[in-house]
Each structure stands twice: as C-alpha cells, then as structure tokens.
C-alpha cells in the first residue's frame, strides 16, 4: 500500500529540512549561549563567548544561590501558581456545569454572556482600576494575586468548559439522579471526572500563564520584595547584572530551570493539552 502515501518531491524535502534546521538553531542557539556562559567567569566569556567553558565552574551559581534569595522567589512563584490553579479548579468547573445544564434559563444564560464578554476586554482596561481596588482591599500580596488570577481565568475557562460539558451526553447524570444522587454528588463524582481532559488542558494553559506572568505581579507585588516572583526578580535584577553578564546568564538559566524540567518530563502531555485547548478556544 506504500504507493498511496504521497511521495513528496526531493526539492521540498531539502528546503523543509533546511528551514527546520535553521529554526532549531535559532531556538537552541540562545539556550546554548546561556548555558555555556553561565559556567564562565566574565574574563573567560570575554575570551570566547561562543566556546564551551573550560571547566564546569559553579561559582556564579553558588553566588546567586547564596545572596539572591533565589529560593524565596521560586517558593513565591510556586505558591502563587499552585494557589491560583486551586482557585481555577474550584470556581471554573462549577460555574461551567451550572451554565451548561441551564442555558435555557435567563439567569444562567446571562452569566454565560456576562463572563464571555470579558474575552473582548484588553487587560490594560482593568489593570489600572485593579491596582486601586487591590490597594483599598489591602490585597497587594500573593493572596490578592491568587484571587485575581481566579477571576481572570474565568473568561477562557468558562468558554472552554461550557462547550465541553454541553457536548457530553446526559444519560449517566439522569441515571444517577434517578438513583437518588444530589446535584453536588453528580458534579463531584461524574462531571469532574468526565471533564478531566479539558481540565488538564486548562490547568496547563493557566499554570504557564501564572508561572511566567510579569504584568500582574509587577502591579500587585513589586513594592514588596519579599513577595517577588521569578519574573519580577529577573526584571529587578537586570540592572544589577548588566555588567556581570555571565552572572546574568546564570540567573536566566535558574529562572527557566524549574519550568524546563517540568517540560522535559511532560512535554508530550503539555503539547497535546495545549493543542486541544487552543483548537477549541
């Protein structure tokens, strides 16, 4: 049956491979430079920016870890990401389930449209009032940021989940109801399980957003150094390391490291999950 598989022209295959190779160099080249230079002293990098380090010199790393409060920022970023994901999982599927099963009722349809309208609002419109609202509520801290992420996750979350739940058959739910299950029990033991694929997608998309976000932490946390996340730490240290650039590379690498380790471990699921959500979104 091999003859039915499209034989692509040699010319296209060569061009394609050249394109992909150039792309890989453009993506991995900067990564390579960051890694090799993070192990060099300034003087060594001056002699050869592109060469491999002469030895694995960890002094940049020990210096960064000893004075930079690095672990504090990793902890803050982790805390905010995990806390926000919990918020996402608490409020998104519940409201989406309620909407999906009651679209014919005015209130639920209103809530649906109300939340979806947020898709058209650029972040800049709410960011300035939010700083004032958060200041007034005394929430310029990680907890405030978690609440905000929960609220801001709703537009995408409701959009994806309502469509997903509406497409699910209702027979199992009806059978469970006849067996005397309450709405909450049905939600808890049936709906949550059936929406798992879409929830995974949502969690991946939102976790990347929370972990890497710069704008909201800048607005909410920048004044208090003890609350800084990794992107804030990076941004605020950019002047400090502007001369000691091998040290700067070490800090970039350390800022990327947690997410790259996670990516290396689960890249297949991450890519699949993001594609799923992106197509439906």
């Amino acid at each position, binding site marked *: 049956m091999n003859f039915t598989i499209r034989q*692509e022209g040699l010319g*296209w295959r060569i061009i*394609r491979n050249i*394109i*992909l190779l150039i*792309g*890989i160099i453009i*993506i*991995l080249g*900067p990564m390579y*430079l960051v890694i090799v230079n993070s192990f060099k002293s300034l003087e060594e990098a001056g002699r050869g*920016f592109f060469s491999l380090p002469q030895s694995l010199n960890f002094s940049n790393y020990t210096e960064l870890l000893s004075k930079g409060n690095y672990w504090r920022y990793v902890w803050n970023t982790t805390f905010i990401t995990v806390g926000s994901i919990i918020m996402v999982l*608490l*409020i998104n599927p*519940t409201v989406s*389930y*309620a*909407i999906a*099963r009651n679209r014919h009722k005015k209130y*639920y349809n209103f*809530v649906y449209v109300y*939340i979806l309208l947020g898709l*058209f*609002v*650029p972040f*800049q*419109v*709410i*960011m*300035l*009032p*939010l700083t004032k*609202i958060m200041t007034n509520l005394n929430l310029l801290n990680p907890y405030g940021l978690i609440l*905000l992420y929960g*609220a*801001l996750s*709703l537009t995408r979350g409701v959009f994806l989940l309502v469509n997903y739940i509406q497409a699910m058959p209702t027979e199992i739910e009806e059978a469970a109801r006849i067996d005397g299950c309450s*709405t*909450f029990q049905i*939600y808890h033991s049936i709906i949550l399980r059936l929406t798992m694929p879409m929830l995974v997608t949502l969690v991946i998309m939102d976790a990347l957003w929370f*972990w*890497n976000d*710069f704008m909201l932490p800048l607005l909410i946390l920048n004044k208090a150094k003890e609350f800084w996340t990794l*992107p804030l730490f*990076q*941004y605020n240290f*950019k002047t400090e390391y502007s001369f000691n*650039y091998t040290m700067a*590379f070490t800090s970039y690498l350390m*800022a*990327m490291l947690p*997410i*790259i380790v996670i*990516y290396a471990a689960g890249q297949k699921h*991450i890519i699949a999950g*993001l*594609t799923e959500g*992106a*197509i439906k*979104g």
Partner: protein
Amino acid sequence: MISKFLERSTYFLFTLPAVILYTLFFAYAVFVGIQYSFTDWNGISAQYNYIGFHNYIELWNNPNFKQSLIVTGKYAGMLVAGVMILSLILALSLNSLKKFQTFTKSVYFLPAMISAVTISLIWDQLFVRVIPPIGEALNVAALFQSPLAHPKYALIAVVVVNIWQAVALPTLIFIAGLQSVPSELYEAGRIDGASTFNRFRYITFPYLMPTITVNMVLAIKSGITSFDYAYTLTGGGPIKSTNVIGIMIYNDAFQNLKFAMANAESVILFIIIAVLSFIQIKISSKGGVH
C-alpha cells in the same frame, strides 16, 4: 428542609463564587476604569473632579499618543505577519516530517514555556554581545551597536524577540488544522494532476481557514496589547521608537501622575479591540470550511 433547599439551589450556588469574583475584579474594574477616564485624578491625591471628555479631547491632540498608536500598529502588523507566515511554514514543514517529529516539535515549542521577561533579557544580552562583532566583521555601521539602541531598528528587534516566542502556539494550532484535512482530497487532487501549489491553494487552504482566523485573532490581540517585551528590552525608547500603547498607559498611570489620562488611553484601546473583533467575526463568518 435545609438539604432540600441546598439541593434546589446547588446550581445557583455553583455560579456564586465565579459571579462574585468576576463582578468585583473584572466587571467592576471595567466600570471604574471608564469612570476614572472622565476625571482629572493623578492616582494619588484624595480628591478628583469629573471633567467630561476632556482627557479624550486632549489625547486627540496629543502627538505622543498618536505616535504611540502608530508604533503599536506597526508592532502588531509586523508581529501578525511574522507569526502567521513563520508558523504556517513551520507547521507545513513539521507536519510532513516523518523522522524525529516529536523531538523537533518539542524543540519548537520550548519558547512557549519561558517567561517573556527571561526571553527578553537573554536577547538583550545577545543583541549586545553578538550583533556588534558581526557588524564590525562586515563593516556595516548600522550593526556596530545593539539594534535596541538604534531608533530605527529597535522596534524590529523587539518584534523579532516577541516572534521568537509567539510562533510556537500558532504552529501547533496549524498542525492540528492540517491534520483535519481529509487525505482523500489530496489523492483526488493528484489524480486530477493538480500541482503542489494548487493542492495547497484549493485543498489545504480552505480547510485551514478557521485555524487561520483563530491564530490571526490571537496574534492581533497580543500585538496590540503587548507590554512585556518592549518594557523589558527598551522601556519604550530610544526616542519613544518602541513606545507601544501598553507602555504609554503604564508610564502615564504610574510614572507621569496622569492616572485618569491613562484610563482614557486604555478605554480607547478597548474600543479599538472591540471594533477589530467585530470586523474579524464578520469576516470569518463567511468563507472557509467549518
């Protein structure tokens, strides 16, 4: 009694946390933002006055605002063009790859994992350390310094960094779109003697239409509202050449004590996005295979 009440109102209770949070941190914020835009508040003082459309009129006459809109338009235009063309080429290439497809895909997706700040800082260093030696070797004066320091090239340099990261997700979406094209159509096309280009033009392209719309919408919105890259790389300079609207709003609100003015700027941004979204929905509702 209580359990019966709870059962009847479960759905309603399910909506409450979301509705409350969304109302306070989103809807109310939009409302307050629009309200501020009609005041003269500097963001700090205890009192402020309502001044009608004064801020909007002032913006209309403000050359900096116009310039910022133009910079934003250029930024978005270059970003959309770069992202759409590159991600389509990469998706076609990756999709037809037989060997190492998983590995290559995961390399191409790596940039989407890293924060814009880290990426910007890395490229900032690369522009300083890599471009000038190349410029000196080739004796091209324009490359003697980092392109970020040059009013003419800074915007392009910022967009390049943004594209470096922003291509990943649209590429994935395009690959998924390509896989939705029924392979029988290619067969039929080949039997009818259609060239590779014509197969793309008449088979692949119509099936990709919805995907193109999705990617376009995402790219335009991210281009118009962009902040992270320009803010980290140039802070809007040199000579405001990269002063996108996102930076102008931020600086007016928090540096220049023009908080109300900044709100008026973001309301205008809101209107621009709303109009563009409307046009896009109108266009994408015709044509293409759904």
